[in-house]
């Protein structure tokens, strides 16, 4: 099977791998690199659990071929905490009890991070829109919406 080289940064560190052509980014991250924070909930693009940030944009790693990410900067939930300190979103998810089974959580946090990166003070409707590609079966969404709004408030307080 043809192996192709792929090189990108993952959470700020350089990665270079030989992968099978046609490998999805999700499988490359999980099986080759060992970052299992993106989850394979559907492999169809319908659940959002595999969401990652590629060059600042939210993407579904299950529908993205790894080799199309050559040279890209990729962020996953595993890379959010810095120096052992949680990102405000992670903190907010804890504080609002926004996780139950936790399987959708990394994807939700990715979607929320892209929102807050571009829209630091989102409205409730903007939060809802930002999370609309991510399925949660446990929480009924409300605690997750509250977590994102809480993280936004924490951010704006820090900035003030």
């Amino acid at each position, binding site marked *: 099977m043809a192996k*192709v080289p792929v090189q990108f940064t993952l959470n700020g560190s350089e990665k270079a791998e030989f992968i*099978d*052509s*046609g490998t999805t980014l999700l499988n490359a991250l999980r099986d080759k690199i060992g970052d299992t924070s993106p989850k394979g909930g559907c492999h169809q*693009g319908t659940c959002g659990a595999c969401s990652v940030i590629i060059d600042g944009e939210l993407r*579904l790693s299950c*529908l*993205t071929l790894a080799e199309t990410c050559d040279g890209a900067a990729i962020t996953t939930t595993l890379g959010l905490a810095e120096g052992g300190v949680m990102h405000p979103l992670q903190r907010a998810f804890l504080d609002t009890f926004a996780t139950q089974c936790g399987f959708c959580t990394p994807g939700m946090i990715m979607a929320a991070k*892209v929102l807050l990166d571009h829209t630091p003070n989102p409205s409730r409707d903007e939060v809802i829109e930002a999370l609309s590609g991510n399925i949660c079966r446990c929480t009924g969404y409300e605690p997750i919406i509250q977590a994102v709004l809480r993280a936004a408030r924490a951010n704006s307080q820090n900035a003030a």
Partner: protein
Amino acid sequence: MALALHTFATVKDANAALKAAGTRYLGGGTLVIRAANEGDVSVSGLIRSIDPALSAIAIAGGKVSIGASVTMAAIARHPELGILAKAARAVGGPAVRNMATVGGNLFAPAPYGDFAVALLALDAMVGTDDGELPIETFLAGRDGSRAIVTSVSFTPPKADGFRFLKVSRVKPKGVSVLSIAAVLGQAADGTVSSARIALGCMADRPMRAKTAEKALLGRSLTKDGIAPALAAAGEGTSPITDPIATAWYRNEVLPVHLGRLLLS
């Protein structure tokens, strides 16, 4: 055969590669990679072109041309494509919109393809290396179409002349019960001087509501004025039945939603 991606600098070379058996063009991946993930083993060669022209948006001389690889997100945030933003945002969630392309949407089977419904109402031309085709002709023949779509182009209507509605069960993101796009011209007295109405999910691909269009001409956009158009809205439709809704339901609510769109 294992899956393999082949990347070409030009559309011409990619088109040539697509002549091989078992190949398919890779746009945003929302259709093709999904199919591969789900075990569609009929495709082994994924072909793509990274020609920058495919990702360009050109607005000049009263004409808009959008490269086939332009994503829904790029359209939604483009300052001069405001009238299309609603239709672009109707596709998927944020991640899907960052991936799903204009070209891909033209091939998306119902209940997908809401953006193509908008393009149909806009009377877009679909470009390939072989030249341009009216979108209606393109959609009719899309199943057998092998040439890579390179662009869509259209003359944008006045901002208040374009209306779009997507009806879905799940909010804010859900697939269509149906979608409607309308480009209306209005005379000074407010009566309709021209109308193009496109429907999604009312057939296996976007279709025109031609009888309704005719019935709108010369009419004012009032409850009584649009009544003949609503009565004719379902003419020629053969809606899909899928897990979201039956053909019966789609036919029943089409006039309701068309009416609401026209009176909005």
